[in-house]
C-alpha cells in the first residue's frame, strides 16, 4: 500500500473517530448514570447540524460561534426532553425501566425525524466547508483545514467533558450518581437535577458532533440514523455505560470503518464493523473494557 493512501485512510478514520467518540461518550454517559438506552441520540446530532446550518448560513455568524450556539441549543433541547419525557417516565415506570427508555426514545426519534421533515422538508442543508484551505504535509499528503478544525473541536469537547467529570464538584456528583444512587442522595445530591444535567450534557456532545461535521454530513431529517447506530456499535463493543472506553472505542471504530470502506468497498464497512462486534462479544460478552465495577469513568 502506498503512503498517501495510508495517510488518507488514517486521516479519515481518525476524523470519523473523533465524531464517534463524541457521540458514544455522550451515549455511554446516559447509560452509565441514568440507565437509559437512548435511541434518539442521533436526533440530537441532527438538532446540532440544523442549528449550526441556520446560524452559519442563514444568519451568517462566524463558524465557531455557530458551532457553540448549536451545542448550547442541543443542551437545552436535551434538558427539555429530560424534564418533559424521561422524568415523568421515571416517576411512573415500575420495573422494565431500560425497555421503557428504549421504547420512549425510539418513538421520540420517529417523532423528531418527521417533525423535521414537515418543517424543513427532505432537502439537504450542507456546506462545503467552514474553513477554507489545506495543510500540506508532503506534496502528496495533506489535510483540509476544515477537517482538522472539526477534529480539534471533537478533541476539545471530549477533553473538556472528561475534565468536567473528573475535576469539578458537579462532575463528581454525576459519577457518584452512576455508582450509588442512595449514597448520592445521602450526601445531599439532588438526583432529578443531576439526571437532567446528564441528559443535557449527552445531548450537547451529540449536537456538537452534528455541528462540527456539517461539511461532511449535511443536515436533513434522517441524518441521525448512521451516527446513532455507530455510537451504539461503539458503546456495545467497549461495554455499556463506560465513557472512557467509548472514547477509545470511537477511534477504533472510525479507523476500522475507514479501512473497511477502502478495501471492501462502500456499504461493506458496516458489515465489517458488525462482524468485529459479533466476534468481540462472542469472546467477551461484557465488552472490551467491560467490568463489574459500576461507574461512568472508573473501570
Amino acid at each position, binding site marked *: 500500500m502506498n503512503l498517501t493512501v495510508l495517510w488518507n485512510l488514517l486521516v479519515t478514520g481518525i476524523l470519523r473517530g473523533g465524531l464517534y467518540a463524541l457521540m458514544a461518550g455522550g451515549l455511554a454517559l446516559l447509560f452509565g448514570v441514568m440507565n437509559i438506552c437512548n435511541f434518539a441520540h442521533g436526533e440530537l446530532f441532527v438538532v446540532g447540524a440544523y442549528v449550526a446550518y441556520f446560524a452559519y448560513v442563514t444568519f451568517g455568524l462566524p463558524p465557531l460561534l455557530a458551532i457553540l450556539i448549536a451545542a448550547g441549543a442541543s443542551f437545552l433541547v436535551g434538558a427539555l426532553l429530560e424534564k418533559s419525557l424521561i422524568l415523568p417516565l421515571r416517576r411512573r415506570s415500575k420495573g422494565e425501566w431500560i425497555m421503557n427508555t428504549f421504547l420512549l426514545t425510539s418513538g421520540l426519534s420517529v417523532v423528531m425525524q418527521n417533525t423535521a421533515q414537515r418543517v424543513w422538508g427532505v432537502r439537504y442543508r450542507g456546506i462545503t466547508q467552514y474553513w477554507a484551505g489545506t495543510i500540506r504535509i508532503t506534496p502528496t499528503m495533506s489535510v483540509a483545514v476544515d477537517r482538522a478544525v472539526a477534529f480539534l473541536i471533537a478533541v476539545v469537547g471530549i477533553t473538556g467533558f472528561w475534565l468536567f467529570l473528573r475535576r469539578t*464538584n458537579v462532575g463528581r456528583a454525576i459519577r*457518584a450518581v452512576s455508582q450509588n444512587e442512595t*449514597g448520592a*442522595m445521602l*450526601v445531599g445530591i439532588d438526583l432529578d437535577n443531576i439526571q437532567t444535567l446528564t441528559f443535557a450534557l449527552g445531548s450537547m456532545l451529540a449536537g456538537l458532533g452534528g455541528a462540527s461535521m456539517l461539511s461532511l454530513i449535511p443536515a436533513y431529517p434522517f441524518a441521525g440514523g448512521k451516527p446513532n447506530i455507530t455510537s451504539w456499535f461503539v458503546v456495545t463493543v467497549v461495554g455499556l455505560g463506560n465513557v472512557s472506553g467509548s472514547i477509545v472505542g470511537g477511534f477504533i471504530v472510525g479507523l476500522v470503518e475507514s479501512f473497511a470502506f477502502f478495501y471492501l468497498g462502500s456499504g461493506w464497512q458496516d458489515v465489517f464493523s458488525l462482524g468485529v462486534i459479533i466476534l468481540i462479544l462472542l469472546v467477551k460478552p461484557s465488552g472490551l473494557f467491560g467490568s463489574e465495577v*459500576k461507574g461512568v469513568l472508573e473501570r
Partner: protein
Amino acid sequence: MLEVSQLQASYGPLQVIWGVSLHVEQGEFVALIGPNGAGKTTTLRAIMGLVKPLSGTIAFNGQTLNGLKANQITRKGISFVTEDLDLFDGMTVHDNLILGAFSLHDRAQVEGTLESVYDLFPILAERHRQLAGTLSGGERKMLAIGRGLMLSPSLILVDEPSLGLAPKLVLAVFEALKQLHERGSTILLVEQNVYTTLHMTNRAYVLENGQVVMEGPSSDLLRNEHLQRTYISMGAAGEGGFPAPADGGGPAL
C-alpha cells in the same frame, strides 16, 4: 432535637413499624436495639425520607421532615450511615470524603473537617488515594462514617456498624463512635450487639415487632431482666463480651 412520634411505615407491601415514638436530644448517644426484623432499619430509613411513612410525624429542630427527599434531609444536617454503606466504590477514599461535604460550600471548613476525619481514622489518611471498592470491610465502615462526618452533621444515624465485621474490628468501630460522642456528636445508633451498645450509650429504645417495648437509660436496661434473658446472657458468656455478629455474612473485601 429529633422527635419521631407515632410513626407507621412499611417495608415493601409489609407494614413493619406500628406507632414508634422516640426522641434524641442534643449531645446524646442513643441506641435503638432489638432483634432482626424488628423494624430498626426501616425506622432510620423513614427518618431520612428513603421510606415514606404511612403516618406519624418526624421533626428535626422543630421543623417537620415529612415529605422531604433524602438529599433535602441531609442538607438539614443529618448524616445517615447505612447498613450497606452506599460508598462510591469506583472513587478514591479522598473523593468519597469530599463528596460527603457536597452540600457545604465553605472550602476552609471542609478542609478542616477532612483533617479531623483523618485524625479520627488514620487508616483513611494512609489510603486516601485508594479506591473505596478495594478497602477491607472495617476500612469501608470507617470510610462510611467518615463520609457522614464530612457534612459536619448535627445528628448522625448509624445502622448496624458491627454487621459483617470480625469482633476486633467491631471493637474499633465502636471505639470510634464513642470518641465521636465524646467530641460532641449526637448519635442515634441501631445495633443488634446489645451488650456492648448498652455499655456505650446514654439511653436506649428496645424495638420488637415494630413497637417500642422498652426505653430508658442504658445502664438501667443493662440490668433489666427481660433484656438479660433475651439478648445479654448469650453475649456476656462470650469472650470479652463481644458476641459475634448474628449473620457475619458481609462481603470480604
